[in-house]
């Protein structure tokens, strides 16, 4: 049941022409989920992201890329070679009916294509032209060769993610890029923020504009205390297993449950959590001294020893119960603990089912539905983002789009 105040149609009437690669897929899909019409203009061989796996079948053809499916929901596809000079008139006409042109890819390609769009924008002062490139359109590194991994390295996220050092303080394991395509997630989210700002500005001023998104800077914004710690104190944070990078190595907190699942279980300094730990130990039947005068004395005399005792008790608790049991028991006592789930374990979770977190998308070619993560928020009744159509097949909407050019 959708309320009249749902945001899923809030961008209806906004049209985005998308030209480029995997750096742009996500940004425009976010706005498509709020009701914008997104038309991908693809070359004969298809957008580069149609070549990224995993694939739905062993043939690995351009209609089977799960990457493309994931990041192109709700969109349309028209086959139009934007680099062919004979396409110029069609592009002008499409631009005159569009609100945003989104160009993504390596600097050379985007800069070359941008020349044409600068001319087209002169005749369409309301047009918003957004570029997403690895480093932005200027600066000495603008043309460096990159991939998602290289962006995560240069942007600083890898240096704060990975495993604990050994006992001598040296690292035996490399820094880790956490989850694939993360730099494009960040670039895409910020591009969507910037496009929304430009749309709002246009409502006030009637003016379009150019937006130059740098994936490198987007990654840089997202390392939390790493930069402030260096800026204010001169200290450099160190990466640590499944916890925040910090100038010092903090207490390890990955423990396996009785059924072998890693749990994220830790205690904050809040007294409420200390009491909850004692209560949970009581429930499970693990003897402890929390709450006794002796423990209170220990806390006064040696708070480090007291903390070690609490952490030992916590680990004993985690090891004594299956992960899901522990999760619900801990949460009912107000402890922010969770099993480290595989993503797919959420597909059948009743909480996400109740919220409508997954969009059910029909794939006629497969003869079945697939469920996609489809929102980040609810309006109290229904998801705010609305995804209803699978990613387009290459050129699926060419006729529809070309009719627009002719009309």
């Amino acid at each position: 049941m959708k309320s009249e105040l749902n945001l899923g149609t809030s961008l209806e009437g906004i049209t985005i022409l998308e030209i480029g690669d995997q750096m742009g897929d996500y940004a425009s899909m976010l706005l498509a989920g709020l009701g914008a019409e997104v038309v991908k203009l693809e070359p004969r061989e298809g957008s580069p992201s149609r070549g990224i796996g995993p694939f739905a079948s062993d043939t690995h053809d351009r209609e089977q890329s799960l990457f493309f499916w994931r990041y192109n929901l709700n969109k349309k596809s028209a086959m139009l070679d934007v680099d062919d000079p004979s396409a110029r008139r069609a592009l002008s006409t499409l631009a005159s009916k569009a609100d945003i042109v989104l160009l993504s890819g390596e600097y050379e390609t985007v800069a070359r294509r941008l020349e044409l769009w600068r001319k087209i924008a002169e005749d369409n002062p309301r047009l918003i032209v957004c570029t997403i490139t690895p480093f932005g359109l200027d600066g000495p590194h603008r043309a460096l060769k990159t991939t998602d991994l290289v962006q995560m390295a240069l942007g600083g996220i890898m240096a704060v993610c990975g495993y604990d050092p050994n006992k001598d303080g040296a690292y035996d394991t490399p820094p880790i890029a956490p989850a694939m395509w993360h730099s494009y997630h960040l670039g895409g989210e910020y591009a969507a923020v910037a496009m929304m700002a430009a749309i709002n500005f246009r409502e006030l001023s009637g003016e379009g504009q150019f937006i130059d998104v740098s994936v490198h800077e987007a990654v840089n914004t997202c390392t939390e205390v790493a930069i402030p710690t260096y800026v204010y104190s001169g200290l450099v944070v160190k990466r640590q297993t499944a916890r925040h990078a910090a100038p010092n190595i903090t207490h390890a907190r990955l423990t396996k449950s009785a059924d072998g699942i890693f749990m994220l279980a830790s205690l904050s300094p809040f007294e409420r959590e200390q009491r909850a730990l004692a209560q949970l130990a009581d429930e499970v039947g693990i003897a402890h001294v929390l709450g006794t005068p002796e423990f209170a004395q220990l806390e006064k005399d040696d708070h480090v020893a007291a903390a070690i005792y609490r952490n030992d008790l916590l680990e004993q608790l985690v090891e004594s119960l299956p992960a899901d049991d522990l999760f619900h028991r801990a949460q009912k006592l107000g402890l922010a603990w969770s099993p480290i789930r595989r993503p797919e374990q959420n597909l059948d979770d009743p909480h996400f089912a109740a919220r409508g977190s997954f969009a059910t998308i029909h794939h006629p070619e497969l003869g079945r539905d697939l469920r996609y993560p489809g929102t980040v928020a609810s309006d109290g009744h229904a998801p705010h983002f609305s995804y209803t159509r699978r990613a387009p097949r290459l050129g699926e909407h060419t006729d529809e789009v070309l009719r627009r050019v002719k009309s």
Partner: protein
Amino acid sequence: MSEANSNGKRALEGVRVLDLTWLQVGPQATRLLATFGAQVIRIEWRERKAIDFIRYVPPFAPDHATADGGRSQGISPRGHGIRGNYDRAGYFNNTNPGKYGITLNLNHSKGRDLLRRMVREANVICENFSPGQMDKWGLGYEDLRKLNPRIIYIQTTGVGKAGTYKDYVSYGPTAQAFSGLTFLSGLPEPQPPAGWGYSYLDHSPGYFGAIMLMAAIRRQRLSGVGCYIDMSQSETGLMLSGTSMLEHQLTGKPTARYGNRMPYLDWSPHGAYRCSGDDNWIAISIQSDEQWRALVEEMGSPEWARAARFATIASRKQHEDDLDAKLTAYTKGRERYDLMNRLQARGIAAGVVQKAPDRFDNDPQLKARGYYVDLPHSDIGTWPIEGFPAKLSRSPANIGGETNRAAPKLGEDNDFVYGKLVGLSDAEMASLREEEVI
């Protein structure tokens, strides 16, 4: 940055945001709104439980930093920490530039009345209290909507206010573990997950929040309606879990981790390789056999690299452990930036795993783009603040926002906000101060 655009209109001009959020998950969204010109009013109260916890979190400005000084006076790991001064925390300063700061006691009925009065004139209200807290105060969406039908109300919680686990509690790392993001990071099993070195799910709701709020603000401007947004940190995690769930639905296979390798494209070698110095690394992505041959040439064409088992992508993938070990033997004596430049010159995607000093002191690209922005703070002086990662030609991002300042001191703008914006008289303000309301 801010000089260049101080005369133009702002994208969110005239938009007033009441910001009851704290930590990172809420203030990130309002930071972005302030950057685009919204008037953001941070609301705290001067009791320990109602002061933003980030004010307690290190790093702190060094003791010698004063209002007319700042970073130019030097840095120090030996600050005195918090010691009852809530205005010296560096991460708070970085998270809350461009916002006004006021104190308001919501546990006092007159404080709640004053908030209601402010809601009548506001466009947006943001909060990330425990689920249900605002309802208990009579300040929930349905209550506030009666006062201002146009109001946009956003709340962010770990799992969402609606749903089976609505009472469950969560920090960013909890939501990361729950949603599957923690699992996705790290070396293949049986190695444990490496997880994330920061609360990514305290950041992504900020970006999503800004996107949704700006969609809602536009609609409010055009058609005068508001909305209620129940954002779930965990759902933002699901959105970012890539193709894993689709693959699982089609194949039934459990999701796997791949470290820094690339199983989804014909790319190899692909990883972080040790360089000379202390914990120095370089990321290298070889995307074709041609690039592999260029790398072999750069290495001086050693015999191992010319072996048939490494000649094609399929074969390199088959022998990836051995390949990584041999490549490391080459990189580990090399200076990281020199190697990056040499590989880049050959058209190879390679980049140093940059640490904070590399990014802050030396990154020529960030310097050229003016990424860090110096902004004054009324107690600790002028410090560099992380910027916005895009240039907009007509309505530029302005990290200093309407205040043209870094973060507010606790209650710094009480006189301006209550006096000028809300319109309280001096006598009213004095009496509310007396009664511990503001």
